[in-house]
């Protein structure tokens, strides 16, 4: 039934890849320039509390390129980055790519589950509010969303921690895995247990935007002519909303959910910080505070790609999945 238009899809991908390359070049130059402005001495951070001789210090300065001009330093960094080498992290003493790989996997588990959960709950609430437009249920959901949008993410995380970990003791207070257990002995259940509370917190915040959007859209659809016609045919209640409302609202809502990757990442940074969840966001904060420039730049690049993929998915849905747009194109 669905005919994939191969040629158009290929053109679309080509355009997107070119756009991503341009974007990464500009973002890397801009962020490199920004951290270059900061009063950071990589040698001092690397040495830390170690004692070194002046000769060793000179070698380190040579290695970190303290005295090379910024342009040369940037070109070196890009050259290495193209070969997959993003340099070494100063605080983890590991290649940046390894740190990112490990941290991103952890963050992805958190973000993906929160993303799904908030999408489903938000969509459901939006549909209910839109169906019952003007009633007390609608008002309650609307108020709930307004309050949620004004809530500081990290404070909500703190309150969740207070209620469920400190007061009720249902969940561990923090960290991705239990303390004092060997890495091999950490079970999947342990990991899940440490994931639940951060996921719930992160998804609670995502609910508001999607619910408000779904509600508006559904009200719009329900006041259309074809719904009026369906009502005239005798359709009513949930069947009517399901057949004519949900189908029309679902696609824009999913698109919006994909466009929210930037906010999702920002939320993950804060939530990970509160729950000391060892994800990419926490690494970004560490890298920023302790001036780990290579790691910070690596995280900026990877998160830019993450946001880009979200936007691309939204575009893809809009251009290739929505049957109405396909129909318009074939007509034209």
């Amino acid at each position: 039934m669905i005919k994939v238009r191969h040629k158009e899809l290929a053109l679309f991908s080509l355009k997107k890849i070119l756009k991503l390359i341009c974007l990464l070049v500009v973002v890397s130059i801009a962020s490199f320039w920004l951290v270059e402005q900061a009063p950071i001495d990589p040698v001092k951070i690397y040495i830390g509390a170690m004692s070194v001789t002046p000769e060793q210090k000179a070698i380190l300065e040579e290695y970190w390129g303290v005295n090379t001009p910024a342009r040369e330093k940037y070109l070196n960094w890009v050259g290495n980055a193209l070969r997959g080498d993003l340099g070494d992290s100063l605080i983890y003493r590991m290649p940046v790519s390894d740190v990112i790989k490990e941290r991103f996997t952890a963050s992805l588990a958190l973000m993906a589950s929160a993303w799904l959960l908030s999408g489903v709950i938000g969509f459901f609430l939006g549909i209910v509010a839109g169906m019952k437009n003007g009633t007390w249920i609608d008002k309650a959901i609307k108020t709930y969303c307004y309050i949620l949008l004004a809530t500081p993410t990290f404070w909500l995380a703190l309150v969740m921690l207070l209620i469920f970990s400190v007061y009720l003791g249902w969940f561990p207070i923090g960290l991705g895995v239990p303390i004092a257990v060997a890495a091999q002995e950490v079970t999947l259940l342990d990991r899940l247990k440490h994931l639940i509370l951060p996921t719930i917190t992160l998804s609670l915040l995502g609910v508001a935007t999607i619910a408000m959007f779904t509600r508006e859209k559904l009200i719009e659809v329900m006041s259309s002519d074809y719904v009026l016609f369906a009502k005239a045919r005798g359709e009513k209640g949930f069947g009517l909303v399901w057949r004519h409302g949900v189908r029309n609202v679902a696609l824009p809502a999913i698109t919006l959910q994909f466009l929210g990757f930037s906010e999702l990442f920002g939320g993950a940074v804060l939530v990970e910080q509160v729950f000391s969840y060892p994800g990419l966001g926490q690494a970004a904060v560490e890298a920023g505070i302790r001036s780990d420039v290579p790691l910070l730049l690596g995280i900026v690049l990877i998160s830019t790609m993450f946001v880009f993929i979200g936007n691309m998915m939204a575009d893809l849905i809009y251009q290739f999945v929505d049957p109405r747009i396909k129909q318009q194109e074939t007509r034209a």
Partner: protein
Amino acid sequence: MSTSVALNGKGMLRGLNLRQRTILLISLMSLLLMTVLASSLYIDSSSLSTNFDSRNLAPSLEHPFGTDWMGRDMFARTLTGLGLSIMVGAFASAISTFVSVVLGLLSSMGRAADSFVSWLVDLFLSIPHLLLIILISIGLGGGATGVIIGVGLTHWTSLTRVVRAEIKQINTQDYIHISRNFGKSNWWIARKHILPHLVPQFLLGMILVFPHAILHEASVTFLGFGLSPHEPAIGIILSESMRYLAAGYWWLAFFPGMSLLIVVLAVDVIGENLGKIMDPRKAHE
């Protein structure tokens, strides 16, 4: 505090029409914000000082928000922090609005300028917002300046988009064509014909950006990039409270965050209702 205001309002609201009610709501919320700001400026500094006789007290009549591990009154600290947040937020949203005024007018100058502006908007939206603020504030060497400029330089995107759309619409008007045929320059038209139309948009935009700015400032400060630990900012208070959560001192985290939430909601309500009054199509809802 806020509930009593709402209850009093309900009785008074009966005799008023929608417009009067909206204006009353805006005034009440503005009064609330003014009170917070004024009391944060004139607060008795003795209540902020350490007092080791009254450490870690739970909320009571004397200390409505409790006291911290140094015996400081949390109510006084929260008020000062809120005042600081409001000022940082106001400053940052003023910067954001200024940037969107400049970029909005720039985009009306011609095709090339317009595509440059939309490219810039896309660029700023391509890095996760929080990470971008962190990057800018690191680049500026951190501290209060870093946060204010970081938050200010990243919140202009949505307003610029609104302004661009508005300008595109104004540009199709007859009087713009006539003006152009009279030989007026793009810059003259932007200043004399377009800018006056946009002033209400900018004022409203500034208020609507405000809550986002406050929340981002608090977040960045909470993460440790913003204001210095000596300042009683809400972000600092909450990040300090994290160390005492396991000990069960819930009031250290609960009340300051709740107050920030109320301030943000108040600004939101002002913005929404101002928008309703200013937009004749929405005024009847």
